[in-house]
């Protein structure tokens, strides 16, 4: 499935036109009434930006696609990789950082061309453990703990460096 340049240019321009119109509608319907001057009306500035964006997008829509503007190929594989990103973010609060990241990285490695399953799993394992050591243990970033499988609780207790970095 190939999406050609001319269509793509117009599709992006059309999207921007609708986006500007929608946001302008939002700007004209604020949650609470605002003031009437530049200083007191929070929406004057964004309205100006959105009007300019609307005009520029219309111009882009009317312009002819230039030579060399890309086409989109392999739409299924793009959708698949994006579905993995989305799935990872949705499952992360349930699986937890360690298990979720391990599965995500392994799957990404496999999709990026690593056909040996054990190697993809190894990449996932090493990637997750490195992240765990650098970000969790050293930088103390609080990653999501799994609601279903809480590996983080075990690793949190088994922190090898303990409070070394807490000054």
């Amino acid at each position, binding site marked *: 499935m190939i999406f050609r340049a001319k269509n793509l240019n117009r599709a*992006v321009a059309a999207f921007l036109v609708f986006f500007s119109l929608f946001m302008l509608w939002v700007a004209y319907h604020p949650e609470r009434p605002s*003031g009437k001057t530049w200083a007191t009306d929070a929406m004057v500035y964004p309205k100006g930006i959105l009007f300019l964006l609307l005009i520029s997008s219309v111009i882009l829509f009317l312009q002819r696609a230039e030579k060399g503007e890309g086409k*989109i190929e392999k739409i299924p594989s793009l959708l698949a990789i994006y579905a993995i990103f989305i799935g990872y973010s949705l499952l992360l609060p349930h699986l937890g950082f360690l298990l979720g990241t391990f599965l995500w990285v392994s799957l990404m490695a496999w999709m990026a061309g690593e056909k040996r399953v054990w190697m*993809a799993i190894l990449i996932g394992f090493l990637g997750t453990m490195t992240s765990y050591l650098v970000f969790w243990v050293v930088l103390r970033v609080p990653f999501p703990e799994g609601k279903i499988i809480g590996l983080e609780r075990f690793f949190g207790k088994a922190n090898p460096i303990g409070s070394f970095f807490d000054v």
Partner: protein
Amino acid sequence: MFDALIGGCGIVFTPLNLLIIFFATTLGVIIGIAPGIGPFMAVVVLLPFTFNIPAESGMLALMSIFVGGAMGGGITSAILGIPGTPMATATVFDAYPMSKKGQAGKAVGFVVTGSFFGGVFSLVVCIFTAPLLARVALAFGPPEYAGLALMGLSAVIALSQESVVKGIISLLIGLFLAAVGTDEATADLRFTFGMMQLTKGIDIVPVLLGLFSISKVLEFMEERLMVIQYDEKALIPRYPSRKEIWKYKGAYLRASVIGTIIGAIPGVGSVQAAFIAYAEAKRVSKHPELFGTGIPEGIISCESADNAVSGGALIPMLTLGIPGDAITAIVMATLFVHGLTPGPHFFQTQTVMITALYIGMIISNFLMLFLGMYGARLVMGMIARTKESVLIPGVALISMLATYCVSASLTDVWIMWVFGVVGYFLVKVKIPLSPIILAIILGPLFEGSLRRSLSISDGDFTIFITRPYSALILALTVLLIVWPYLRKKPT
């Protein structure tokens, strides 16, 4: 002056401080190379350590991280086309095309020497003219800030290689994104759609990594080509020859001056400096059409300017007690913890400590000159040996972690995924990505200063031309915009 120099050397040339400078610069380079993390995070993480060491050692550690990080980001821009830090966004324009031409080593050489020159230049200027520059910077009010932000935004004309309309669209998208969140003046919520997470606005890191990093992952899935296939010779970073340095002396100097001046103005940072220097380099160039195709002037202008900010940002902090940027604000926090208050009194009484800071940062710049080349060689070697099945998940994972670390929130990760798709489509239709980053950074400064100025003048726009500095900045901005058209010869 001489006494201060001797005293400063006495402080810096101790084993502890030399070790601190070495490790902090190395850490800065490493963190700068890792996409999205940036020296600011390293400085925040290391801040508690500085409480238990002398104040001058703490300052040296934090500023050395800044110096290393400012350069490290340029290396990732050159090799992967992904800015390691927001301030290295403009470096991508010419460094990455140069790498694509099989001259990655040369590109890295210009990144490193550009950073070195900018850093050392700004520190030397700092030593001799700090009080004078601080007085000029203090005369800046909202109209001048608005003008300066507009000047930065006008750089987009120079960045729009093929279509100005597309450049402006990109800029407007960024300005709109910068307006999302709580309005500073009225505390009204704008375009948050009831989402609490958006009330603080959209952070730069998820947008940057989404546009430049995740979009590249998507591109790979389509074309199966993540990075340039480097040959062995291209992998060896090399310093520019003396002849080359002499040839581009104007580019080094001009960008360093721009970076130092912009650094001295509180609240205006490295990103703006790099973009303005790039636009200015293109404006004065005899061959502006070659910018964006991988020419040394493009790389030098961005790197010299963003590293020159490190010295410039010290000026208002040391002389007036006003931090020049986020990192100098943290350095100030270190000084407060040690019972020192930067400002005019501090500048007059602590000359030895201040000179030690200058000397330490100059040493850090020299170290960076070697560490940068070594680090680049290591990274390039690793990338060349790493299979794409490791590199792709690696890039996605680092991007995800760096984004999550911004506020330990999955919302930022979602924002990154969204901008990954946005970046992918914008690249396809040749809408430049960098103006979005520029606008997100400059947007709040522009809007805030514009509205404050109009509030002061009761809505009278002449306030922007009746103040001398503001009028001068606006005149320069107009020149920056119209110059490319004035230069065009009729065909």
